[in-house]
């Protein structure tokens, strides 16, 4: 069960007039845990299924372990897959479910039982082997589905939103377990989800898809802290990054509705930009900060969320102090310019600053 690198090149697919994968080029490193993330309908499943051989791409190639498998039927690609709704055979017992592929592969009974036992042990399914899927809870079914996939000892493990049917607590537990499994088995794992928390916590590497295109690929922290586009910025984090419309004037950036700060970016003067700032990176109470009016406040116990307005723009701020703010109160917001991402307002692409003067804070008025 050695891991195999997967390379997807120029993969394209359309359903009718709808383009679901648009010339995708992605490398999945051998033995890595890659999460394919994206909003619902962006083509994640189609990508995964193209790798598995269940979907035929219109154009492009898939290589697994260096071999071109674009025309290989699914059973010969060396992939195992866990489906979103598990797709357990309802009329077979757990052990038959796990063993069906082994039987088809021509393994003898003894070898099959050994492998089923192994998978069951790894997943704690020992006591359930004689049950039918209908007699299992959601989490148990989930584990059986994974068992079915790993018992085959394939080089590649594919997961299509396997956690989305579980409740919050179970989801959290399964996350830890999945990660542990991956570390033990060492197969190349591709995991599809639309839940960014899952992606952030599970992945070695995230591929963020949007509308059939790769929006950004990288480590979770890269996506969190250096989003390449406003889409990435708005997709990752709970609550996600605040995006404020602003103008670039000289060396300053002037936020619509109030406030400005110096930032050296390569952009035309008076160009419209968007600035992105994470809710937890905002300071609420800086006397020199820009004015924002509290709209609502939520106390989650561990931290608080404030919904405020700068002019017409909504800003969310999280903080973990004990101070409470009430509706209508005026805050003074400021943040380090290092915490800021600038985006082109039209293309949504990130604009790298060519110099970041350290310790420059947002001020009421910009004094260059």
């Amino acid at each position: 069960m050695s891991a195999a690198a997967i390379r997807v090149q120029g993969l394209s697919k359309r359903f009718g007039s709808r383009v679901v994968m648009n010339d995708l080029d992605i490398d999945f490193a051998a033995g890595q845990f890659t999460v394919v993330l994206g909003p619902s309908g962006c083509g994640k499943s189609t990508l995964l299924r193209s790798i598995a051989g269940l979907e035929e791409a219109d154009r492009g190639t898939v290589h697994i372990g260096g071999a071109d498998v674009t025309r290989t039927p699914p059973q010969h690609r060396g992939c195992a897959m866990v489906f979103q709704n598990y797709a357990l055979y309802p009329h077979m017992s757990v052990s038959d479910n796990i063993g069906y592929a082994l039987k088809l592969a021509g393994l003898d009974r003894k070898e099959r039982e050994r492998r089923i036992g192994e998978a069951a042990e790894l997943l704690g399914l020992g006591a359930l082997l004689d049950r039918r899927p209908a007699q299992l809870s959601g989490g148990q079914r989930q584990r059986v589905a994974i068992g079915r996939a790993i018992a085959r000892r394939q080089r590649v493990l594919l997961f299509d939103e396997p956690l989305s049917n579980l409740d919050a607590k179970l989801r959290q537990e399964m996350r830890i377990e999945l990660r542990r499994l991956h570390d033990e088995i060492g197969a190349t794992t591709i995991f599809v989800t639309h839940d960014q928390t899952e992606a952030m916590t599970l992945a070695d590497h995230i591929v963020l898809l949007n509308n059939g295109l790769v929006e950004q690929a990288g480590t979770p922290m890269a996506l969190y802290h250096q989003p390449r586009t406003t889409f990435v910025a708005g997709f990752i984090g709970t609550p996600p990054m605040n995006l404020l419309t602003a103008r670039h004037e000289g060396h300053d950036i002037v936020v619509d509705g109030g406030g400005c700060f110096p930032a050296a970016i390569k952009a035309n003067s008076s160009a419209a930009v968007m600035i992105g700032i994470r809710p937890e990176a905002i300071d609420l109470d800086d006397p020199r900060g820009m004015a924002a009016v509290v709209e609502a406040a939520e106390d989650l116990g561990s931290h608080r969320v404030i919904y405020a307005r700068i002019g017409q723009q909504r800003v969310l701020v999280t903080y973990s102090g004990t101070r409470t703010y009430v509706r209508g109160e005026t805050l003074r917001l400021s943040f380090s310019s290092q915490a800021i991402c600038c985006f082109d307002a039209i293309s949504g692409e990130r604009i790298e600053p060519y110099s970041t003067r350290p310790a420059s804070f947002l001020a009421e008025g910009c004094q260059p």
Partner: protein
Amino acid sequence: MVERHPLLKTTTLILLVVGLVFALGPIYLALCSASVTSRQILVHGLALLPGSHLWENLRIVMRDARIGTMLFNSCVVSLIVVTGKLALASTSAFAVVYFRSRIRHVVFWGTFVTLLLPLEVRIVPTYAVASDLFEPLRRLIAAVTGLHLSVSINLLDSYAGLSLPLMASATGTFLFRQFYLTVPTELSEAARMDGAGPIRFFIDILLPLSKANFAALGTIVFLGTWKDYMWPLVATSRPDMRTISLGIATFLPTETGQPPEWNLVMAAALIALAPPLFVMGLTQRWFVRGVTGIGK
């Protein structure tokens, strides 16, 4: 729901009972009339209360060898049709649903057109075809090779003739197709990832999952075949090939001056409807499921 409408509840209950009376009335009347003497009916009219001669009448009717034969024929034909249709329907629906090949459209449309034109409408030519099954092939051979064979196969007055045309319909395929479409597509994908081909998938996964549908369609087809009247009427000329639903009419007097023995007619009617009622009672759950399956 907290709902207190005693008046509404009672009225509807009464109406339901009225509906029940109408639904079961004919069966009840048959039961009553089958349990009195023929004289009683002629003198007092149709009995509205059960009498004491039921067993006697049933025995008289059963002694008539015709009934036994007809019951047997109905059973044989129904079972053949059920078996054949289940086999054909499950496989052809599989071909229709689970393949990419264009053949599936051929099978689909080729089969489904029969939904549009029931047997009753083409009864006369179907009769002609059943009487000379080989004709199309003979004509083909004659047209291609110029050879005029004199082979012919006549299905009239045979179990094959009674059952085959009833099998040539799309209802079964339709029902199975509806069911297959509800089977999660992931199952076939999972099976394919597991290395199963179409036949293995059909046998290992689809058939076990279709058990309920076999029962449902089996019940519907059984009842439908049992009740069929027109085809047996046309396709049989020998009394020993008649089915019971058809044969029941032969208990009505055909010659003038033949005294009607309504009690025996009704006893025969009871016998004719006992087996399907029994099957219905036994498999009602499946039957209901089948009907609603068609309705989807």
